[in-house]
């Protein structure tokens, strides 16, 4: 039979109808649904045994207690430990993301000697050679980001063995010297540019007490703290001392400009009060008698005086060791370089390649937070000595050596960092004072035997001193120098560049995402300016412009903000200087 058009139609129609009766089309639907529901490329979170482990945050000196929720011993979320003394149960955003630091930045993996991969031995040899080649006038310095640790003791011992070792620390890393702040009883805080509500001390402690102290922020920039303070006294950098004098005068009934007068009034009404941040603060504290009294600065036991790097004579350093922590702020390289001699050797002990390591001759990769046993000594501003451990919760990559262990190796000592820490614990036991506060149950117990303390501390515990410290003089020992005075506007640089809140030292993936989306932190590419000033400069809200300072030029996006001081530009992470701005 021959095949007519009609047959074709019949056939197609029939088969179409027939197909509906087969499972094929319905199966196809189901599968499409399945595909869309288990979308390709969406990771399935690994299930597994869930455990709670405790540690102490070492991302900053505040040393907050950390409760880590782990799956197969891999932390998946961090939280504060309720009732933990130093952290007061809270963590800052950075601390909450502590377990994400390994997923950002440029990690240092291999040891480098002058840019070439080297074995630990050769690195050690090179470093030792450099040390030996030290001349009489030349010194070996270790830049210790957080003095007061057992590691710092190890540095000390190492330097002690050298003719001219200097144990130094970045400027301002010991803001209160041997003193702590009795914030719990303070009723007023005069802050000269200190970000009290933005990362000062431990957030838990500050915010827990925020309700009962008046905050006066003396700062030219409209910072987060300034915007939330009870009184914002915009004072140009360099004029802090005059402001302090004005306040003192006003407190004695003298005449003063409004903000000083208001400040004085607050201080008179709310005592005890303290002042923080620079010499102006010292002046005020002297007036307020804040030292050695409740609600003021109280001395504590364990203070390790360390040279401020600024005090080190220029060109004196032959070998400079720099320890960089997981989250330490970048150190201004220019300030460091001044200290270096002609053929100095720089050794960076750091987890990062993109930090100070860029300037180093030797890079010794160090473990980061949660990757190795670490320690949390007494936090800045704490009135009692304390000590806790930060046991490793993450498996560390190979080739890492903690800075402390590195120096032990340099000294050919056969004890390890953890041995020395054990020694510290033994000392605590010997001292006998204080209590051990365990994170898991929030209970405090008297100090028992060393093994017990050690076990507890590895499981999450902190030793809190109870013995009151013997009173020291009413002067703080550590010298703090005044902020650079604000330059006077010139025709070339008519504006004043002010530092806005600095962004987190290292943006972990989520941190940078969330801050970027919510605009909570002024992005580094933006410059805030008073609308009036902006218009005078021929700018528009949102336009792009170049900012020129005597030593740099940057392109920014202009943001009009009436809160910014007229005649000033605010940028994140910039030093105060004169500037000019031109629209592109």
């Amino acid at each position, binding site marked *: 039979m021959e095949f007519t058009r*009609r047959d074709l139609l019949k056939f197609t129609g029939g088969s179409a109808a027939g197909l509906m009766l087969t499972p094929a089309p319905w199966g196809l*639907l189901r599968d499409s649904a399945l595909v*869309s529901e288990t979308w390709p490329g969406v990771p399935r979170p690994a299930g597994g045994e869930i455990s709670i482990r405790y540690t102490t945050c070492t991302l900053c000196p505040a040393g907050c207690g950390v409760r880590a929720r782990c799956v197969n011993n891999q932390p998946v979320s961090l939280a504060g430990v309720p009732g933990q003394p130093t952290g007061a149960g809270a963590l800052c955003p950075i601390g909450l993301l502590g377990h994400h630091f390994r997923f950002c930045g440029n990690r240092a993996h291999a040891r480098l000697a002058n840019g070439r991969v080297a074995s630990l031995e050769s690195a050690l040899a090179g470093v030792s050679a450099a040390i030996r080649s030290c001349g009489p006038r030349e010194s070996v310095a270790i830049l210790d980001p957080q003095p007061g640790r057992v590691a710092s003791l190890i540095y000390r011992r190492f330097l002690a063995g050298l003719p001219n070792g200097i144990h130094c620390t970045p400027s301002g890393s010991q803001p209160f010297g041997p003193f702590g702040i009795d914030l719990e009883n303070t009723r007023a805080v005069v802050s000269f540019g200190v970000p009290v509500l933005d990362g000062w001390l431990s957030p838990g402690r500050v915010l827990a007490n925020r309700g009962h102290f008046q905050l006066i922020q003396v700062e030219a920039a409209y910072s987060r703290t300034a915007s939330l303070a009870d009184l914002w006294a915009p004072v140009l950098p360099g004029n802090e001392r005059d402001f302090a004098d004005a306040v003192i005068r006003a407190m004695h009934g003298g005449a003063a400009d409004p903000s000083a007068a208001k400040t004085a009034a607050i201080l008179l009404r709310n005592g005890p009060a303290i002042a923080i941040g620079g010499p102006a603060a010292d002046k005020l504290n002297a007036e307020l008698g804040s030292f050695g009294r409740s609600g003021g600065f109280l001395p504590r036991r364990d203070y390790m005086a360390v040279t401020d790097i600024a005090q080190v004579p220029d060109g004196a350093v032959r070998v400079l060791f720099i320890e960089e922590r997981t989250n330490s702020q970048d150190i201004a390289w220019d300030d460091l370089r001044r200290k270096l001699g002609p053929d100095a050797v720089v050794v960076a002990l750091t987890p990062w390649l993109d930090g100070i390591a860029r300037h180093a001759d030797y890079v010794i990769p160090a473990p980061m937070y949660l990757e190795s046993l670490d320690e949390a000594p007494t936090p800045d501003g704490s009135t009692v000595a304390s000590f806790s451990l930060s046991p490793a919760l993450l498996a560390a990559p190979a080739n890492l050596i903690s800075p402390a262990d590195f120096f032990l190796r340099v000294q050919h000592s056969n004890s390890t960092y953890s041995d020395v820490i054990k020694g510290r614990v033994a000392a605590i036991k010997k001292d006998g004072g204080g209590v051990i506060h365990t994170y898991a149950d929030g209970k405090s117990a008297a100090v028992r035997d060393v093994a017990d303390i050690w076990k507890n501390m590895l499981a999450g515990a902190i030793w809190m001193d109870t013995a009151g410290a013997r009173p020291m003089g009413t002067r703080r020992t550590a010298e703090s120098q005044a902020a650079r005075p604000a330059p006077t506007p010139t025709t070339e640089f008519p504006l004043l560049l002010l530092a806005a809140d600095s962004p987190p030292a290292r943006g972990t993936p989520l941190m940078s995402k969330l801050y970027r989306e919510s605009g909570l932190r002024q992005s580094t590419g933006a410059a805030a300016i008073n609308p009036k000033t902006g218009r005078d400069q021929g700018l528009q809200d949102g336009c792009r412009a170049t900012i020129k300072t005597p030593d740099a030029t940057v392109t920014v996006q202009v943001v009009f903000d009436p809160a910014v001081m007229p005649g000033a530009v605010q940028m994140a992470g910039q030093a105060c200087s004169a500037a000019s701005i031109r629209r592109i």
Partner: protein
Amino acid sequence: MLSIDTQLMPRTAQRATTRRFLLWLLPWSALLIFGLYGAGLCLVEGLNQTNMDNRFAFGLWIFLDLTVIALGAGAFFTGFLLYILKKSELKAVINSAVVIGFVCYSGAVAALLVDVGQPLRFWFTFWHPNVHSMLTEVTFCITCYLTVLFIEYVPIILKNRKLRQIPSFLVFEFELHKLMPVLAGVGTFLSFFHQGSLGGLYGVLRGRPFAFREGLAIWPSTFFLFILSAAAAGPAFILLTTWVVSKISGKQLVRPEVPRLLGRISGILLLPYVLLKSIDTLVWINSTSPARGFAAQQFYAWKPFGAWLLFAEIAVFGLFPALILLRRSLRQRTGWLVFASILVCLEIALNRFVLTIQTLALPTLPFDQFLSYFPSWQETATFLGVVAYGVVTYSLSFRYLTLFPQEKDLS
């Protein structure tokens, strides 16, 4: 090859040479391919290819859908007038209207499929429908009505010169055509509903006081305004297309009274629409919006969406063309007819634009920013692709099918 081309055309129709026709198709097909590429990117890479975002969750495409579907309303409304109200003069344009309707609706559906984040799940709406959602109503109606339009399109295709050689095709066409009133009725029902629910789409957004409207039963006032405006725009758009096609093809396609009738219908519907729209706006300004704590004038405080938009929408593109179309003397003049219907189509586009884009641009949180949005090239490409698809489909239909039955006796 050439002879095949001519033998596919209606015998009595004089059409451009194959060469010229291909030249005409060339740019449109290029645009179509470009559009397909853009849409493909959005489907493969995801909607991050667009410039929409969490605040501008809808963009160019929704505007396209609403506008195109409103203009396509000519299909259902002409069908309604012809088959239900027996306005037989409209036989002259019904085929063209059906093709336009089909093009618009299929284009809109295509755009929607690209617009959703999980196109594979389009059928979920039929599986777990939430009958309280206007979008469900829209989805159901559009799919049904697209089917209807397709069925209405079939007979026109079957009458193609080659296909009609097969008697059984003609028979089917004939039988189908006898039942056309039924389909026209269904189509009218469907279109009424989804034109309405497209309006409801925004009218029900109580979270968006700029768009929210009170109404009857479950339907906000925009529901009914959309029906009316679409019914007014449809005939105007048919008038416009007919005029454009006859200009391009250089043929007289319909008797002069047909566009006049279309214009008159459009005018008759537009006037009440403008009046109702004005009343609705007044009610909204004085009651609906304040009741939700929003002072209506603040919606117009954001540049560039000032109160001038409202004026333009109601007076310039609404009242003005309505008055033109209602004057017999002006209707006699093609120039005025065309001008007025252009205004009417713009009116619809503007109305849909305000409802979709302005609504989203306006912040509702007191401390939130006013945000602007500009479509990405992928979005624009898809948009133009839909337009090109329309032009190509219509051109092919015009060349090979009988869209204007009167043409043969007018040439």
